[in-house]
């Protein structure tokens, strides 16, 4: 997939004209940096959105199968046990990771204030990544599954993904080393963390499962550690970096407290790697492991509180921006969802709750809170800001952005509610031994139908998003310079 891009040409001052101001220089500087990054970033975004569409189709099919098992029942490659992991892996590795990497690349060059050099390295990384995801998903559909949740891909695909990510990480470290002197903004801490953590996380998990070949419940322990870090730490870091960048950027107000931001970051780095243990409650592992996970999930309230206070203080007086700016509206939804995710994870980790929810949809609800309500919404917000600056053409239709927002917000909200409350209901019924198992399943059916309704709403949202993105890439949008807003606003745009 190739994207032809003509980046915005910076307006250079004519010789003999008045000396240019610092603000104008800054603008030229930013335009040059954006122009240098446009190829790789748009490549990542375009592939990510393609996978998002695939995930939408897979997710819809798997939700149909939960209440109508004969739906498309004749084909082996569409059986629930294959389409569900294909959906989850497409959503995480296909959509979320490349969308996050595109945002990471752009934030890195903007915050380090350097032009992107060696874009080929990144494009190669992006191509490899997409080959890896394709190989992995096709294998799952053909019936090759490692048996480990979120690590289903065969080792060939995992190796390709690891190489692809290494190219991006090497590039990222080089950019950070060459950054222009000055204070390191809080988003950069998260980005450097994300760049460094992922290869360790993905490499160690795959090495332990395939090369060192740990046995028995150790596999479950590695998988729980990987899953929690993949979503909580890696997506968490990139999502928070994006939120920390765009809320101050678009509202035009600096982050309220660097001190709080610092506490937030280090508590995040310290506690989030332990969260996986909470998913092992009641499992045949030593009791101290889930206990550590529960303790970490309680301690993560520190992170949630600092993030909440900081964003609330930064947004104070600018809440009307949610009404005007698509970027702020999506980003704010993501920031709120980050806090909700943390609280739901904490409540779900308590043993009295986990006893009910451990073997239910509740876990899928937590996953969708993190991957979609928080991370994907933050990435949509970033794409709405970044992509037009790289293409040199604004979004054609504010109505389509609005429809995308409401469909995504309500669709994912409904999906998550169905999963969380359906999980609680399913778990309570299962705990009640007087209720036969068949009636437990029957009781859960309305929640499954509700998930399908949510998917139909999400399909609408993703369709509008994709159409709007395609039109912009093909330069059918409005001329650059005037951001597409929901409602016109006075003064400084964006």
């Amino acid at each position, binding site marked *: 997939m190739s994207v032809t891009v003509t980046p915005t040409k910076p307006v250079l001052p004519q010789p003999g004209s008045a000396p240019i101001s610092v603000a104008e220089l800054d603008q030229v500087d930013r335009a040059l940096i954006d122009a240098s990054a446009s190829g790789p970033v748009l490549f990542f975004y375009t592939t990510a959105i393609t996978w998002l569409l695939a995930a939408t189709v897979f997710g819809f099919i798997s939700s149909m199968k939960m209440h109508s098992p004969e739906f498309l029942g004749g084909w082996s490659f569409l059986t629930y046990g294959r389409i569900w992991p294909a959906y989850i892996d497409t959503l995480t590795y296909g959509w979320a990771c490349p969308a996050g990497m595109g945002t990471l690349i752009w934030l890195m060059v903007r915050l380090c204030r350097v032009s992107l050099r060696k874009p080929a390295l990144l494009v190669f990384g992006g191509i490899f990544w997409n080959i890896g995801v394709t190989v992995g998903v096709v294998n799952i559909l053909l019936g090759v599954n490692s048996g480990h949740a979120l690590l289903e891909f065969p080792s060939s695909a995992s190796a390709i993904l690891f190489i692809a990510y290494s190219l991006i990480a090497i590039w990222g470290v080089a950019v950070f080393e060459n950054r222009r002197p000055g204070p390191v903004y809080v988003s950069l801490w998260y980005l450097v963390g994300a760049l*460094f953590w992922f290869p360790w996380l993905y490499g160690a998990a795959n090495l332990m499962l395939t090369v060192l070949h740990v046995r028995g419940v150790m*596999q479950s322990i590695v998988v729980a550690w990987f899953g929690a870090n993949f979503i909580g730490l890696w997506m968490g870091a990139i999502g928070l970096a994006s939120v920390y960048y765009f809320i101050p950027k678009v509202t035009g107000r600096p982050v309220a407290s660097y001190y709080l931001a610092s506490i937030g970051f280090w508590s995040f780095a310290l506690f989030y790697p332990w969260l996986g243990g909470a998913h092992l409650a009641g499992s045949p592992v030593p009791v101290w492991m889930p206990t550590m996970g529960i303790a970490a999930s309680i301690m993560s309230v520190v992170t949630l509180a600092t993030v909440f206070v900081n964003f609330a203080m930064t947004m104070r007086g600018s809440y009307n921006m949610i009404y005007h700016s698509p970027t702020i509206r999506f980003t704010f939804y993501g920031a709120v969802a980050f806090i909700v995710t943390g609280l739901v994870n904490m409540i779900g980790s308590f043993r009295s709750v986990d006893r009910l929810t451990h073997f239910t949809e509740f876990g899928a609800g937590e996953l969708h809170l993190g991957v979609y309500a928080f991370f994907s919404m933050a990435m949509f917000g970033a794409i709405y800001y970044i992509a037009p600056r790289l293409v040199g053409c604004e979004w054609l239709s504010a109505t389509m952005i609005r429809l995308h927002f409401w469909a995504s917000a309500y669709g994912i909200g409904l999906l998550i509610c169905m999963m969380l409350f359906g999980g609680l209901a399913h778990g309570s019924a299962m705990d009640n031994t007087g209720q036969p198992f068949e009636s437990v399943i029957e009781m859960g059916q309305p929640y499954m139908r509700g998930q399908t309704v949510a998917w139909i709403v999400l399909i609408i949202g993703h369709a509008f998003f994709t159409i709007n993105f395609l039109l912009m890439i093909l330069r059918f949008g409005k001329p650059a310079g005037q951001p597409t807003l929901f409602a016109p606003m006075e003064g400084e745009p964006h």
Partner: protein
Amino acid sequence: MKTFPAIFTGIFATFALGWAGAVMIPQFQLGGLQPQVDEEMGDIYPINVGGVTDQGRRVYASEGCFYCHSQQVRGKFDGSDIERGWGGRRTVARDYIYDDPIFLGSMRKGPDLANAGARTTKPESFYRELYDPRGAVPGSTMPSYRYLFTKRKISGQRSVDALDLAGPDAPEPGYEIVPTGEAKALVGYLLSLDRNHALKEVPQEAKKK
């Protein structure tokens, strides 16, 4: 926090701590777990069966059975698994040392299968449920795995594995529905699932009457 080494050291140290605590210490604690050997009785548990069980486990993974079926019995404090008749005792780490990959599972859209082979001992019952889940259990939401079976012409004797089907599912006369090698391996694996063997680290929890 303003310089690269300082940030990087912190990023490295916090993650290393989590990795050591959540992965490496468990590996030291559990990585060397051995089967229980009762020398007097000459009894070893668990046993690495291998063969068709390993093939069946791969089918179980590739069809994604573990996305809806768990294989773990929790103790009375953690759930009602024992009261539901899914096992006589809670399962412990030693039960799984030869499970590769392990399928503890995180979902019960279907019943727990930790002791599936102890509850259902006839292969026909598994074949029937895999071929026609709603015929075997009304209201089941399990997919039908008809693609793991083939229809073939009866030549001479009817196959011992052939499914006894009636009504619209029944093949035309002279034909029979038989499980493929994959279905046979899967059912062989399911029949092998029995984790009720006594272990010294877990007392048999008396079943509530």
